[in-house]
């Protein structure tokens, strides 16, 4: 219990810190509007060039809703962990994080929970409300509860991926390249930029065995389900739970080995 308190203290500090960055939030909302406008015209032309209004089982409207919500999820999911770890390793600031009486992985994770929650409230929720008001396409029922569970799992999976990629920064100096590569791969294979339904068969196969779709496609499909039965969502949640555990173990292990590397050889 008292152990939990030290983690929640990090969440609290993160929220207070986040409240100080109003400008950053405004800039981000502005950037999103531009991004979403581009998406809108892009997909409109894709659908306009198609002979039928339904492409790969999705209408223009459902595609757009899917992508808008994916962007909203991206906004609170992307915490630039890789970037921060890389910078801390290079500047040596990581030394100060390592003298905390906590495991570094948990320390960093809980430091991010504050901003994540704040971003969720300030970008995801408003987007959600706007989409719902305009389209009335998101069912408001039990799916929301499943969505919450699913999104928490997604945050955990995403953090493990980020933490693992961030750990690579202990070995390499090209943080920027690593970060971009990670982002491109995650955003593509998770269905955040192009809905997975549009993937050609080969690529879809690859995406289905990778953990990334558990980050975006999983929670989004649940969100858009109309009063789902438990048996509808269970396969998705099970897959997410599987990846959450697997990647947790992998990222912890990889970090342990790598930390030994720096403590033995110097970073």
């Amino acid at each position, binding site marked *: 219990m*008292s152990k939990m*308190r*030290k983690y929640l*203290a990090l969440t609290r*500090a993160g929220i207070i810190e986040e409240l100080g960055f109003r400008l950053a939030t405004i800039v981000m909302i502005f950037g999103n509007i531009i991004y979403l406008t581009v998406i809108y015209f892009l997909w409109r032309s894709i659908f306009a060039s198609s002979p039928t209004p339904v492409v790969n089982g999705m209408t223009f409207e459902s595609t757009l809703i899917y992508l808008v919500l994916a962007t909203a999820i991206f906004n609170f999911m992307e915490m630039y962990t890789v970037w921060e770890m890389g910078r801390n390793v290079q500047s040596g600031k990581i030394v*100060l994080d390592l*003298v*905390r009486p906590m495991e570094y992985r948990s320390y960093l994770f809980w430091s991010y929970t504050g901003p994540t929650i704040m971003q969720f409230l300030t970008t995801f929720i408003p987007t959600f409300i706007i989409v719902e008001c305009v389209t009335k396409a998101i069912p408001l029922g039990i799916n929301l509860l499943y969505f919450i569970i699913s999104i928490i799992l997604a945050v955990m999976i995403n953090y493990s991926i980020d933490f693992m990629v961030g750990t690579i920064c202990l070995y390499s100096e090209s943080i920027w390249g690593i970060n971009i590569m990670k982002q491109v791969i995650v955003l593509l294979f998770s269905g955040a930029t192009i809905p997975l339904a549009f993937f050609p068969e080969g690529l879809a196969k690859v995406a289905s065995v990778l953990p990334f779709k558990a980050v975006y496609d999983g929670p989004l499909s649940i969100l858009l389900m109309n009063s789902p039965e438990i048996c509808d969502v269970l396969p998705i949640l099970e897959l997410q739970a599987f990846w959450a555990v697997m990647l947790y173990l992998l990222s912890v292990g990889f970090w342990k080995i790598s930390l*030994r590397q720096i403590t*033995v050889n110097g970073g």
Partner: protein
Amino acid sequence: MENSIVLKNITKEFKVLNRHEGLKGSIRDLFSRDYKTVTAVDNVSLEIKKGEIVGYLGPNGAGKSTTIKIMTGILKPTSGEIMVNGKTPWEDRTSNCEKIGVVFGQRSQLWWSLPLVESFKLLKDIYMIEDKNYNDMLDFYASIVDLEPLLHKPVRQMSLGQRTLSDILASFLHSPEVVFLDEPTIGLDVAMKSNIRDLIAAINEQKNTTVILTTHDMGDVDALCKRIVIIDKGKMLYDNDMEHLKKVFGSYRTLSLRIRSSQMTDDFITSLEERFSPYGISISTENNWVSLVINEDRIKVMDVLSGVQENGSIKDMKLEEISTEEVIKRIYTEGI
């Protein structure tokens, strides 16, 4: 009295890649196994008692920060044994960290955009400090430094001095057994330095905290340390009382003279060297300044002055106590 820190034959080697120049070299480095070994700490043994303030000195690159990182458990020594508060820090890093405090002068451990008091509250939870101890500590701090104006200021709005002071307060907040201060007074003005020295002395006195202090400022050492340890190139050169060092080097002065530029020739310097080396004086030059380190037991400053004046005209002069760097250089070249 019990030992806070024990080091037995601690050695730390780093393996560094021999880097090659240019793009081709960088690509070659990717696959290179061409390592060289740097010995940052070389067979150092130390025993530090609870409540001591030890000055840990040495020139740049001597291995001071590396030793501190070993003592905090961040680095694992290549060989040797180490105990801090009865535990091996690298084996037990997180629990060791509960009982130590650390300040690395160049960077802050505080939360950049939070007011100081929020950082303190966070540390209170992280280190699980009891309410009573926490409040007592804040009262204690307030009795030594002017705490109130700092508490509500975000760290990023603080001056370097205020930030360093805050960092030091933060490092003692959880009443650690040992605090490591790595160049805590770097870049501070005289008033802030003396403030910080008073603070460290007061906390050490009140809480009996062991303090390991790394600094290039002899003033810090004079104000705080009864004992100093000097290392250079990873090897321990000296471990003794300040008193002892003062006795040995108390009679040393550095005399700096500005010579008319037309007379600053190599011949002039050689003639000085020939004249004064029998008295153990070492000479260095920078621009038009000549610095002579004089042992007053062997020759009087006045005699040196008049000796120099015979061959050159002096435009300006300074007489200083011997500096840390000088002492260390002496110890290194002459032993003690």
